[in-house]
């Protein structure tokens, strides 16, 4: 028998302190009311990812009951024009398009816009006023989530303006204030530290949600479930059984109109320092004591701190860089990187980066972690491949048979799932051995497709769950790890560039770093 929480008052009427109707009802809905402010609401990220995510969260009844959205950007829009723009974003990019009119009408009345200049404090004061109105009108409860979806160069300005307009968390005594910071968090160690200094002036670490959308992907979250919700993997998850770990984030796309940005970034900054390093941490971390965000993030940081930093002399032994030349992808001719719009014709920027990292701790000493990421490669694939040692003594199979090593592959995209390669006897009189693959696919295994990462991450930030966001110490350490490589690559021009054809598996030199790369 369950109980109801009542207390008797003087007039004989019971006072209820805990909602008794909530018992036994599982709900994904976010309980705290809140208003989310999107800085850079007229930009590409908002259009393609963020607004569709908000709509889907409403559609799936995950947004809090009392919710508001304010767009804040330079483009001139009236509230009505912005609502129409938001609706178009959903229709163009949501997995649930087209919008349901009746639902949209309800959501749209909670959306407004401020045409703003980030240098002008009065516009932030207007935002403060609008937030007050929202809190009155929609019962948003003084809970505020600021989302920095602008170019990173504007982050410090927005953060300091929030403080000037008295929108900093210290002034908000009636609710919470949090900030989501899009990647990249800095363009190198020094700039990341400088940005962090600005953030720290206004927000405490617990109020900062540094987003890396890779961490919101279902399979990435499943890495921990695979490791720590099963007993069969963890005992063999060590240097005693694992020969190497390969983490791949390969794209077939080029710079897609972002040549200006990419030419100042490159694969190491754009992918390895954040996405790929985060995957490495999840694979290599020790079991956390609890599922608490900080318990997990502590373990991730420990992995990073155990990674050996290369000296400048070691950089070329543990890294390979590449830049794509013209080639063919999917039967279509594509231009060389240096011929892309807004890319310098003599660019030294790498579009491919591969690293070999060593983790100096008891679990991983001697196990190479190979990381690679690149553009215009043969196949779009993100995966983690864990290769186990060859069997110590061969009992089965004909001489001509190859006994493959066991490989566990965690597939992140485009398919999300897990596969395991093992050897089996081919039916028949002979003792032929052949490798077979056991596949688990999220779509067919659970009969549902995973939700896009941004939906999960925005909802988590509203809930105050920072597990899937990167803490500053890990960001800083990840920069420390890649900086020696970055500095050497920047200081020494690679005369072999371009050194791989678009549509290939990357530069030939990568095979000297790791002859066992899985084919793309």
């Amino acid at each position, binding site marked *: 028998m369950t109980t109801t929480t009542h207390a008797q008052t003087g007039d004989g009427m019971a006072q209820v302190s805990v909602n008794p109707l909530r018992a036994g009802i599982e709900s994904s809905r976010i309980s705290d009311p809140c208003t989310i402010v999107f800085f850079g609401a007229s930009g590409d990220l908002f259009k393609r990812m963020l607004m569709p995510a908000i709509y889907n969260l*409403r559609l799936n009844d995950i947004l809090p009951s009392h919710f508001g959205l304010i767009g804040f950007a330079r483009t001139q829009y009236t509230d009505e024009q912005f609502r129409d723009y938001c609706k178009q974003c959903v229709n163009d990019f949501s997995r649930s398009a087209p919008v349901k009119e009746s639902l949209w009408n309800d959501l749209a009345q909670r959306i407004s816009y401020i045409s703003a200049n980030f240098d002008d404090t009065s516009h932030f004061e207007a935002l403060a006023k609008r937030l007050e109105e929202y809190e009155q009108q929609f019962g948003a409860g003084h809970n505020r989530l600021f989302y920095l979806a602008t170019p990173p160069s504007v982050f410090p300005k927005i953060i300091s303006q929030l403080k000037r307009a008295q929108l900093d968390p210290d002034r908000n005594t009636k609710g919470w204030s949090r900030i989501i910071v899009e990647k990249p968090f800095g363009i190198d160690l020094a700039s990341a530290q400088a940005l962090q200094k600005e953030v720290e002036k206004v927000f405490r670490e617990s109020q900062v949600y540094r987003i890396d959308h890779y961490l919101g992907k279902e399979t990435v979250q499943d890495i921990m479930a695979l490791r720590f919700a099963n007993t069969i993997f963890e005992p063999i998850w060590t240097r005693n059984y694992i020969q190497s770990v390969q983490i791949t984030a390969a794209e077939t796309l080029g710079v897609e109109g972002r040549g200006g940005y990419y030419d100042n970034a490159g694969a190491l900054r754009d992918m390895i320092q954040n996405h790929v390093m985060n995957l490495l941490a999840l694979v290599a971390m020790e079991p956390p004591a609890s599922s608490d965000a900080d318990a997990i993030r502590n373990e991730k940081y420990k992995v990073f701190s155990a990674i050996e930093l290369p000296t400048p002399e070691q950089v070329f032994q543990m890294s390979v860089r590449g830049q794509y030349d013209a080639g063919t992808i999917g039967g279509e001719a594509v231009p060389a990187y240096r011929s892309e719009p807004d890319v310098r014709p003599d660019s030294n920027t790498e579009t491919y980066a591969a690293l070999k990292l060593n983790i100096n701790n008891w679990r991983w000493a001697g196990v190479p972690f190979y990381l690679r990421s690149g553009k215009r490669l043969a196949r779009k694939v993100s995966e983690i491949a864990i290769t186990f040692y060859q069997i110590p003594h061969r009992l089965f199979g004909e001489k001509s048979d190859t006994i493959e090593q066991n490989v566990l592959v965690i597939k992140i995209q485009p398919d999300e799932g897990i596969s395991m390669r093992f050897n089996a006897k081919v039916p028949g009189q002979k003792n032929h051995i052949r490798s077979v693959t056991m596949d688990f696919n999220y779509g067919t295994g659970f009969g549902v497709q995973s939700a896009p990462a941004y939906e999960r991450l925005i909802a988590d930030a509203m809930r105050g769950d920072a597990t899937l966001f990167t803490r500053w110490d890990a960001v800083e350490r990840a920069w420390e790890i890649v900086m020696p490589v970055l500095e050497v690559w920047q200081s020494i021009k690679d005369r072999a560039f371009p050194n791989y054809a678009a549509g290939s598996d990357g530069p030939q030199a990568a095979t000297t770093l790791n002859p066992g790369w899985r084919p793309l």
Partner: protein
Amino acid sequence: MNALNVEDLLGALAHERRDRGGVSATSLNVIAFVENDDRLLQWMAETSDAFAEAHGFRIVLLDGSRTPESHSVRTHCREMGETLVTSLEQIQLGVSGMGAQELRSVVHGLLVPNVQNVLLWGGSHVGDERFSKLAELTERVVLFSSSSDKALESLRELTRLERTPLAERIRDLAYMRLLSWQDLTAQFFDEPDLIQELPSLTAIDITSGSDPEAYYLAAWLAGRLGWEPCGDLQFCNTAGDGIRVNFHKEGLPRRIRSIRLHSKSCTFGIAISPDAEDLICLTVEGDKARPMRCVPLHDVDIVSLVERAIFSNTDGGVYLDTLDVLRRLFESKQA
């Protein structure tokens, strides 16, 4: 039906499986019983294919209207990577004239050992001995109390199981379908200012297309709020004040259309939007009025509902509380 027939059936199934796919992914046995309802029987057969997209299982489809001469087997396969996997094994068997003990024995022989067993009971009443015998084989029992012509009678019969060990294993789709409505009702009172209205509720209006849903919803509220049945469709709260329950029949069977809760100073309304059938609008009128808010109606499809019924964990006794209130409500009605 004797043991040889069971072996024949399993042999035919194995033969079929070999023809269609090499690997079996069976992790669940579903025993489905249907009587005098060809539509439900056909629905169960069709739903099996949809269910098999997500789960590997064997379904033993028992047709209470046909004799054992009527039987068939089939399998359903899907590709996973390079492997063809058998995800559904279906045995359809006429069981008319078979006694409860014999039925239990035959079905037991047809199950895959060492996996979870579930009974989907589409029979006319749960007082049937065949129901209790088949339920003995399973860890979960899924009922469709709202599907029969005598739905309220079925519900009344179900409440008699409330104090038996079987009750904890029962999931009634008529109750499970109410989840969104329960959640929306609870939403009002998540707000600290509005939660104080709960002790002063005076009346409930529920509009639905069939009776069990309305009874379940009223009994759920009563169970959560500590109300006691005190008359024909009337509850009394802990202070002894009466709460009148009014049921209105409107709309599709097995669907709620609206709920209104009246307190001394407010009325809380949840209703399907007049503009769109897939939208529910929430209103608070009176002293603590709130702007109307609309949310999508999450009308879970039947396959997902069955899936939820099979795999969902306990709700902490809330369903049993609800059955208990219902039983006493029916008893007080009879008295």
